[in-house]
């Protein structure tokens, strides 16, 4: 008698395999569709799309650089502000709250709650609360006192790169601190104890044994945060002013890849729409790259190219 697998097994496997394949198909399909949609724009503008600095729809002069710049600049501001704060929170929960696990868990939950707030609400709050505060208490004073520095040279209206960067910072803190927390918890206690027994203070133990050991993972958290910042749309759109601009002035209005798409996707003209889709394609690749990098770094930390015994 021939042995046959139960029909149920075969059916189940087919269904599940289909689901798994679907996921691959989505990612591949994403790339293909975006490419097809941008084809007209790529044909028309070629490489100057990436290098030119003007975005003038009415004159058919279109290039992505101002938006790439905006994405990079706002993300950089977000990282500069958000990364140290995330690191501090993670170190606090992981190193200082060892004897108070419950408080640590509660604090972690509170910070994670920040991640649950929808982007559009961040934007709303940004427009009505943050912009006035930043403009009056940070930007105007900085402009008055340090306005000779190119960074602060513009007349601050509040809808600018700086505000967008601050909002992004708040938004990426939960992700970065959560991942960093996980990464720090993997550092073996024997490392800390080895440093303590050489006669080190609490901070020195953190600085010289915990953080170096976890540096791969911390960098992974950093890149992950960067990735989040690159892709953020609504909160940025609502506070950045949406005027394509390449300038070192932090208090100038600007635009990002994602804010452009949100504002202009509905344009009906063929080439223009294709150009917007090409912007989406660029964002797709940037996000992909950053995602790969972050996962690789975190994989390195957990699989450990570390202690070899």
């Amino acid at each position, binding site marked *: 008698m021939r042995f046959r697998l*139960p029909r*149920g*097994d075969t*059916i*189940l*496997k087919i*269904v*599940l395999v*289909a*689901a*798994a*394949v679907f*996921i*691959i198909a*989505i*990612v591949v399909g*994403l790339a293909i569709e*975006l490419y097809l949609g941008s084809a007209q724009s790529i044909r028309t503008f070629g490489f100057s799309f990436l290098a030119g600095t003007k975005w003038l729809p009415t004159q058919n002069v279109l290039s992505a650089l101002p938006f790439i710049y905006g994405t990079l600049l706002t993300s950089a501001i977000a990282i500069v502000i958000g990364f*140290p*704060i*995330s690191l*501090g929170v993670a*170190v*606090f929960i992981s190193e*200082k709250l060892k004897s108070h696990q419950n408080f640590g868990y509660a*604090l972690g*939950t*509170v*910070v*994670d709650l920040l*991640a*649950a707030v*929808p*982007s*559009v*609400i961040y934007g*709303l709050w940004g*427009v*009505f609360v943050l912009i006035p505060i930043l403009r009056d208490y940070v930007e105007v004073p900085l402009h008055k006192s340090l306005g000779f520095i190119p960074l602060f040279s513009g007349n601050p209206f509040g809808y600018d790169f700086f505000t967008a960067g601050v909002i992004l910072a708040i938004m990426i803190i939960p*992700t970065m*601190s959560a991942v960093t927390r996980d990464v720090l918890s993997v550092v073996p206690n024997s490392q800390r104890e080895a440093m303590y027994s050489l006669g080190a*203070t*609490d*901070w*020195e133990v953190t600085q010289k044994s915990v953080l170096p050991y976890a540096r791969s993972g911390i960098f992974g958290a950093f890149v992950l945060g960067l990735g*989040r910042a*690159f*892709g*953020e*749309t*609504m909160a940025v759109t*609502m506070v950045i002013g949406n005027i394509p601009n390449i300038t070192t002035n932090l208090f100038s209005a600007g635009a990002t890849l*994602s804010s452009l*798409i*949100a504002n202009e*996707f*509905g344009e009906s003209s063929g080439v223009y729409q294709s150009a917007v889709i090409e912007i*989406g394609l660029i964002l*797709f690749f940037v*996000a992909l790259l950053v995602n790969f990098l972050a996962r690789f770094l975190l994989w390195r930390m957990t699989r450990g190219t570390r202690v070899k015994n």
Partner: protein
Amino acid sequence: MKNSTLPTGISLWRKILNKLMTVLIIVTVVLAVIPLLLILGDVFIRGAPAISIGFLTKLPTAPNVPGGGIANAIVGSFTMVGIASLISVPIGVGAGIYFSEWSSSKLSTVSGFMNDVLTGFPSIVLGLFVFVVIVLTTKQFSAFAAGVALSLVMLPIIARTTSESLKLVPTTLREASLALGIPRWKTVLRIVINTGKNGLLTGILLAVARATGETAPILLTASTSVYFAKSIFQPTASLTVLIYNYGTSASRIWQTQAWGAALVLILIMLGLNLLVKFTVGRHLSGSRVET
């Protein structure tokens, strides 16, 4: 051997630095927590005045006419998330089961990796994708398209959490079931899933919460409307897009309503997140899904 060359004791600078860093670290914690308190506080304070039964049950009015409501937006959001769940839950759970039960296959590795990449992908790109594929071809904004776009946001989350919860089910359970002669498909569907169902539910709830708060994908696919949608193939209003439109408008009334809508949205989201914490508590807190 007596100490000859080394400084004895610990230098004052090291002590000061230690204290200083402790203070700095506490400062960062305060800085991280304050925005949350401010935002939630503002949403409640500025949104509460807008809330009323009428607000929740009426349709929007013209920009400066008082008395409008967000009823269609609430219904619209539920509709879109509902459609998204119908699509993403079966596929996501299916993929998750495959990742867990056939974890050694090459398809599992590749698909799992793609899934990780898709998690936390910029949702506007997902929205743009659906915009190109559905909206442009049908020349129609629709709740259906938004549902598809949101399902792309939810899918990787559900697949990931399903896979992780099922992996926690002890192998011995599977082996015992198979040894009793129960076919694999029954083992997986009845026994494994039953044991892991808490985690599954959590993942689905997390994904639903995420989708409810999304704006960009809906903006690009369902646009908005001032009416209740008569079918899922028409432009449809949603809470998040409404907040965006009203919040960036010049109308004072609409701005207040934006805060009101924000409050409603926050309450829905907090409710969903609390549900998650209560169904599972600590053990799945590792599934921080934006990573």
